């Protein structure tokens, strides 16, 4: 017995330098195949490469809302594949850069991976308060450089939005990054070449509701923004242009004065004044509707300073205020909404639809149809060739494409299915448009957990991802390999000179070795 014990002790001592432990198994969370085959297949491509590095990996597809819950609300994951859609207001780098801010690492917020870098946070505050656009750009570029070396998140790829329109009916259809054809500009720019002067859009999605104080979906707002004006609109090149505002003048760092255009009216004929602007912002700030909260957060108060002038007092300098806040908040008529105390309780029949936009609301038949007529009294009306906009609601993308083929609709509101693209390309009546997206699919590592708490592991695992192959195989080449959270198509803000983590298994192994990892006799990663 005694001899046996000492034998064991001896063996223990003679083991290689330090006893190494196997790296714990990891799980990749992704969507189900039926929800999104791309993210599902992508997870398996990554898992395969990681196994090659000796990691014990399993893929766990999950129902989408459950996946969101595990990722955001519970932060209970090792690594998760998800995406951010490229909404136009996210072209300003504020939102995407914020997803790596440590103050957003709490449960339910936008930094579930828990990246925590004081330098990065300081830069984030600095760029948010920087009014000089070039100085701000330098800060934004530096932020991308700072975080990339740590790879808390891997931007896998940007998928092109492939949409189509019928060229025998309309021309001058200019797709917009992140929006495709269903932007607010396409109906304003489209030129009819056939007999019909109403633009017919078709899509499988419809608004959740059209209550500007209850809708929480992109599809609600994509429709409503056509009949509500904003102070500023983002141009097709995504530059903020004064819209209902004639001028936006910063008085100082925290005070901004907006001068309205002259002679604007609502669709019911009532004049649009500075009172309406102040009312709208105050109404939103006092309401329980939280969809715009992040846009409204910098505002301390709004005051009417003249018939056509409004003054915004901010609590701190905010660079995105003029681009995002002013371009996203719709102008509501005070004479209608001031009489509504609980706007969230309005039934569909009670919801006011009076705006001042270039189009006026006509009808909305749930599940079937929506339409707008061109507002000939609008200051932009002379530029608009169509007499109205119609939206047909279909049950799925198949129905939309059939209607496009039969000429029942003129354009698709949402991307086509991969199988439909070659069919559309083969059809002379249809023009296929491919728009790069600045939204992205990402894999986020949980930095609170082993082995992802180790920077070297994250770097190695990122080098093991063949993202080029993912774009070619999964997206059929219709997309771009990801770099930073600010997409290359967002050229002004994107920093092209960051570490790129090209696919390189040898480099990945070297990175691991250098950090003290090794492989056991069966090739399993240990430390």
């Amino acid at each position, binding site marked *: 017995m005694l001899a046996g014990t000492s034998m064991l002790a001896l063996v223990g001592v003679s083991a290689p330098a330090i006893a190494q432990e196997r790296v714990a198994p990891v799980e990749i969370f992704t969507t189900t195949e039926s929800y999104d085959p791309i993210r599902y297949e992508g997870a398996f491509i990554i898992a395969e490469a990681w196994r090659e590095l000796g990691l014990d990996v399993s893929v766990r597809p999950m*129902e989408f*809302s*459950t996946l*969101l*819950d595990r990722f*955001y*609300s519970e932060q209970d994951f090792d690594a998760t594949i998800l995406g*951010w*859609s490229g909404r136009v207001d996210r072209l300003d780098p504020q*939102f995407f850069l914020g997803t790596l801010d440590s103050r*957003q690492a*709490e*449960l*339910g*917020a*936008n930094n579930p991976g828990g990246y925590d870098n004081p330098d990065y946070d300081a830069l984030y505050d600095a760029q948010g308060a920087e009014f000089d656009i070039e100085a701000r750009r330098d800060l934004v570029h530096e932020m991308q450089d700072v975080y990339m070396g740590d790879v808390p998140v891997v931007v896998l790829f940007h998928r092109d939005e492939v949409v189509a329109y019928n060229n025998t009916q309309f021309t001058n259809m200019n797709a917009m990054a992140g929006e495709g054809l269903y932007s607010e500009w396409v109906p304003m720019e489209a030129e009819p070449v056939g007999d019909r002067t109403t633009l017919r859009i078709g899509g499988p999605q419809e608004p*959740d*509701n059209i*209550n500007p104080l*209850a809708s*929480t*979906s*992109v599809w609600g707002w994509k429709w409503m923004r056509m009949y509500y004006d904003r102070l500023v609109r983002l141009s097709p090149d995504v530059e903020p242009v004064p819209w209902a505002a004639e001028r936006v003048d910063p008085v100082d760092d925290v005070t901004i004065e907006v001068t309205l255009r002259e002679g604007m009216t609502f669709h019911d004929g009532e004049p649009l004044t500075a009172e309406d602007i102040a009312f709208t912002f105050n109404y939103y700030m006092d309401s*329980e509707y*939280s*969809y715009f*909260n*992040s846009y409204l957060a910098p505002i301390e108060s709004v005051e009417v300073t003249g018939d056509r002038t409004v003054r915004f007092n901010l609590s701190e300098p905010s660079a995105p205020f003029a681009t995002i806040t002013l371009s996203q908040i719709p102008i509501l008529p005070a004479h209608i909404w001031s009489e509504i105390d609980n706007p*969230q309780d*309005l*039934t*569909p029949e009670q919801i006011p639809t009076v705006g001042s936009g270039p189009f006026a609301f006509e*009808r909305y*038949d*749930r*599940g*079937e*149809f929506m*339409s707008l007529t061109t507002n000939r009294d609008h200051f932009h009306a002379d530029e608009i060739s169509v007499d109205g906009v*119609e939206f*047909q*609601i*279909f*049950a*799925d993308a*198949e*129905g939309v494409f*059939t*209607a496009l*083929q*039969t000429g*029942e609709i003129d354009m698709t509101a949402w991307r086509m299915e991969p199988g439909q693209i070659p069919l559309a390309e083969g059809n002379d009546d249809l023009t296929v448009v491919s728009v790069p997206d600045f939204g992205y699919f990402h894999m986020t590592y949980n930095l609170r957990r082993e082995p992802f708490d180790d920077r070297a592991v994250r770097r190695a695992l990122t080098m093991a991802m063949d993202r080029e192959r993912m774009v070619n195989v999964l997206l059929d080449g219709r997309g771009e390999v990801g770099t930073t959270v600010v997409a290359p198509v967002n050229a002004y803000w994107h920093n092209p000179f960051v570490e790129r983590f090209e696919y390189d298994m040898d480099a990945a192994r070297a990175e691991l070795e250098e950090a003290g990892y090794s492989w056991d006799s069966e090739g399993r990663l240990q430390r």
Partner: protein
Amino acid sequence: MTRRTYLIKRVIQAIFSLWIIATILFFLFRMGLPDPTAALITEGLNAEQRAAVRAQFGLEDPLWRQYVLFLTNAVQGEFGTSFSYRAPVSEIVWERLGNTMILMLAAIVLAYGIGVPLGAWLSWRRGSRTDTVGIFVGLMFRSAPMFWTGMIAILVFGVGLSIFPTSGMRTLPYDADGFLDKIFTLDFLWHAILPVLIVALYYLGSPLLIMRNTMLEVYGEDFIEMARAKGLPERDILYKHAARNALLPVVTQLAVTIGLAAGGQVVVEVVFSWPGLGREILNAVRTSDFPLAQASFLIMAAFVITLNLLVDILYTTLDPRVSFR
């Protein structure tokens, strides 16, 4: 047992089943489906903002209180407000149910109207080539998935020949003064033909085969022998004696089919973009719209239970051998 006590007993049973189903639905959705505000995360809402939305939906209340509220409201035919549409659920459900039922009932009437006599006729010609072809066609449409037959129909008659519309139940936009005004139009008929035919062809197999097989059983009965011995014409034996006796299983099948029709044929509603209840249920479950999902499923259950009850009562008339014991 008298007819009245039997009826009372059955009605109580039906109400009890409905209560059980309502309870299961309530808890199943809350435990099985994700938080209805989960989708708001991708819109950039933080935890606090989501909690505010949850409170608006009444989801922050204790579960038992939500349950009691749901039951008391359901008893009064009130199902609350849809989370995503922000509209009264009953309004949405009744409208959608109408759209679904008109499609399904038309298809069922067509399928049974043709299937029953055809099945009887095939049994009479049993073993012949007609019989073989009839069975083959019935089985074929019964086994062909409707999304496929539907898409082929759209491709051929909608896109290729352009004689029928490919989606919706009316040419858009349309104004209708209520449901009847919407459906009593040629435009509606034109839109309904393809989907109704697709569903009818799918349903045709059941009455056809059930009728044919039951008829064959009935032919072996003594009373048919008796009728033949009396020298009655074959046609009379077939339709007056045999067919009437073979109807019972078909009636059962019919009741079940109508009951389940409330749920619609989701596949057909999607393929033809028909604004029916099936499509709505799918959306409700997808977005965790609890009030809408609960109401839809409860109404479907009520349909099945009520029709089963009706059939049991109808049986006593159709077949005097079945009594209230």
